[in-house]
């Protein structure tokens, strides 16, 4: 009884494959793949992790956008082996300016003309911008909630101007 159901199901599957793909040859490879598929079902890959990760893990990344002061490049948050969070800017370029800082803001993204003071956006200081061009790292204070602070902003403190922002997405 059980085997009859099984054969019936197999035939139904084959018939379905035949309908989807008119060539007999394809049907053959379908049968083969059906078997392969079982072995691989919900195959969670974990082994590659060890091969890949040295000491640090990339958690979030995002691309900069900015119009008033053209800003481009990428912001990536890494977690080092000891748990420390580091923000790294790569391929980065913005305009030079006075009193420019790297901050995290508690929004999903920031408009190019965002006014953080007016909008009462929560800010978290990471440090003075080290250079307006090139790769650079900034430490993120321990305990920072990155599910809340989801955007990196290049921010001119003196004029409350957002030079550019990068919304962080899961890596």
């Amino acid at each position: 009884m059980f085997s009859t159901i099984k054969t019936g199901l197999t035939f139904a599957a084959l018939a379905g494959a035949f309908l989807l793909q008119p060539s007999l040859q394809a049907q053959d490879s379908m049968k083969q793949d059906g078997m392969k598929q079982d072995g691989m079902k919900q195959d969670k890959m974990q082994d590659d992790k060890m091969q890949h990760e040295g000491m640090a893990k990339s958690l979030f990344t995002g691309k900069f956008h900015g119009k008033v002061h053209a800003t481009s490049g990428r912001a990536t948050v890494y977690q080092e082996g000891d748990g420390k969070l580091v923000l790294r800017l790569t391929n980065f370029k913005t305009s030079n300016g006075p009193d420019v800082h790297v901050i995290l803001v508690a929004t999903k993204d920031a408009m190019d003309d965002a006014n953080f003071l007016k909008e009462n956006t929560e800010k978290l200081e990471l440090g003075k911008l080290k250079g307006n061009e090139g790769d650079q790292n900034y430490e993120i204070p321990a305990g920072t909630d990155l599910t809340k602070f989801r955007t990196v902003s290049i921010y001119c403190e003196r004029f409350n101007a957002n030079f550019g922002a990068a919304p962080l997405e899961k890596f």
Partner: protein
Amino acid sequence: MNTNTSSWLSRSKWILMAIGIPVLAGAWWAFRPEKLFINQKVNEAAPASLGTAAQPIFTGKLEGKIHATSGRATIYKAADGTRYLRLSDFKTSNGPDVRVVLVMAEDKQLDQEIVKGELDRMELGALKGNEGDQNYDLPAAADLNKYQAVAIYCETFHALFGVAKLEEF
């Protein structure tokens, strides 16, 4: 009369200077106009613990086509120059004969869910699993100027499960 005018002139000059110079200095401090022309370049190395690890060179988000597909595709370059593709936070549907391929980002074929004809692609291997982090070696000949997208592709049905367009990291 003459001396009066000249002393008045010099006094007003003094007042102008006394007010003007601090104002100019203040304006300079506030706007730092010379920064418009001066770039400050830095080139910090990656965080110490990343130093020996492979560096990401391209990345892109996977978008589902015929089957819901999500996650990120990143191309890393190891210290010895070999490159590999890593899928992270990855999930797609299981299926028969699913492969990971490099494709051309501008290829019109990518607009369809089922590719008619042949897709110009470079094989990276059979999909190792439909969920989870995984790595695929790139052939040394892989031209990333030509192939700037990653696709999860079912060869049997010419079906595009998902595509990620790569951007410079």
